[in-house]
């Protein structure tokens, strides 16, 4: 059995995974996760707005003390998207030595953790952009 931790993502026509932010219809500020009142203008009307498929890794850390259900070692970080929104998530790092602040990343969908009953929780995570990753 599979669960999804958050449903804030979609696949676009090119097959890219895109995060879906909540955009204030009054001031245009993007939010992820959703909020009831816009933190910029206190507006209360929002529309779903897919974010760009790429962002930049503001900061990251390799965690060696996992909470229950997480891999023994996993990476998390904050990613800044061009729509002026910063999103937290796990980072896939096949080679952790290549990670650095401001690294361009994309979004993919993967298993993030397991629940006590053994079922998997899926959701989005970040992965270094291919061009960066092979260079």
């Amino acid at each position: 059995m599979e669960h999804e931790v958050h449903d804030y993502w979609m696949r676009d026509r090119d097959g890219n995974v895109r995060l879906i932010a909540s955009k204030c219809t009054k001031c245009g500020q993007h939010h992820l996760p959703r909020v009831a009142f816009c933190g910029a203008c206190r507006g209360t009307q929002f529309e779903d707005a897919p974010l760009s498929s790429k962002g930049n890794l503001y900061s990251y850390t390799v965690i060696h003390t996992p909470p229950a259900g997480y891999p023994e070692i996993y990476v998390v970080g904050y990613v800044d998207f061009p729509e002026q929104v910063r999103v937290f998530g796990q980072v896939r790092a096949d080679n952790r030595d290549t990670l650095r602040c401001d690294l361009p990343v994309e979004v993919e969908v993967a298993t993030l953790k397991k629940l006590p009953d053994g079922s998997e929780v899926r959701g989005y995570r970040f992965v270094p952009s291919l061009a960066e990753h092979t260079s």
Partner: protein
Amino acid sequence: MTGVSIVAAGMAKFGRFPDRPLTDIGVEAVRAALADAGDFDIDLIEAAYVGTQWGGSMIGQRVLLQTGLLGIPIVNVENACSSGASGLREAFIAVRAGMYDAVLALGCDKLSHTGGTLTRHPDDYDGSLGLSPPALYALRLRRYMHDYNVSVADVAGVCVKNRRHALHNDHALFRNELSLDEVLNSRPVAEPLTLLQCCARSDGAAAIIVANDKVASKFGSRAIRIRCSELASGRYKPGFRDMTSPEITLRTAKKAYDVAGIGPEEINLAEVHDAFSIAEILYYESLGFCAQGEGTRLLARGDFSIGGRIPVNPSGGLMAKGHPPGATGLAQIVEAVTQLRGEAGPRQVENARVALTHCTGGGVSGLDHGACTIHILTN
């Protein structure tokens, strides 16, 4: 309007006491505060504000039951790492408003029986995706190293300094020195943070008796004046934020200095929330003790050691005492009071007249922290 003073302060020894009930630890702190107060009649205390994060419902009633101090209003306060200090602020407000002559602020927590790192509430967005307190500070540290071109060794000097300060603090959990190599070579928790760059969980309690001018006058120079008692919640700021400059501490500090009419250059010593190595560096800067990006250089120069320009965490801080969140903010007050009375023995800061305490925490997605408290005290 009356001034507000601390007339007595005491704490239980911080440590790991898995078999000891938290209520016993709380009673030890109350007993220490009463001993500090001399022949003060406990029945003069008209209300109690009791902070805990993990001690469960009715912590105040459960502890004070054993002291006979019941029947009065007891308010139990939860504000994560700022729980105890938030209770002190409620005590301050009540006395300042003229409602009571004397009240008790108590903080207690017990974490020795739990394992692993603390986690956020399951509903928290970032927490549900794997963010933990050490991971959050590791993210700040990584970005700080990137923005200011410093090494983790530069930052980890905080832990060496604070453990050295605690050599003469018999209420600390750890009372042995650490070398920088030991700190850096301890096992990784959330890179670049190693285990010894993270405060330990411990058990402890601290108690403060707060009084108006009429009561405080009976204590003479042992009464320590509270010049400001500030509390703020974090602001949700959508978009990008500079994680090397915590807006909640900046904002609370500005308010505290304004209210007290005292500037950062007048602070003689500070107890700040060194939950992780990088935390203390960020707070030197956001409390105005030095410019942004200058923290590690001045740390290495000795500015923040006992004997330096502004000794920070002369008690040894969370690095040496461990961190029972409900008690931490009031243990900082105990140290500040002891220093301002000139009773700190071998760790005494010379000419200590003005002390600042700072306690912040509470992981909430979208905020730097949930809560921040700052107190400025004078003798």
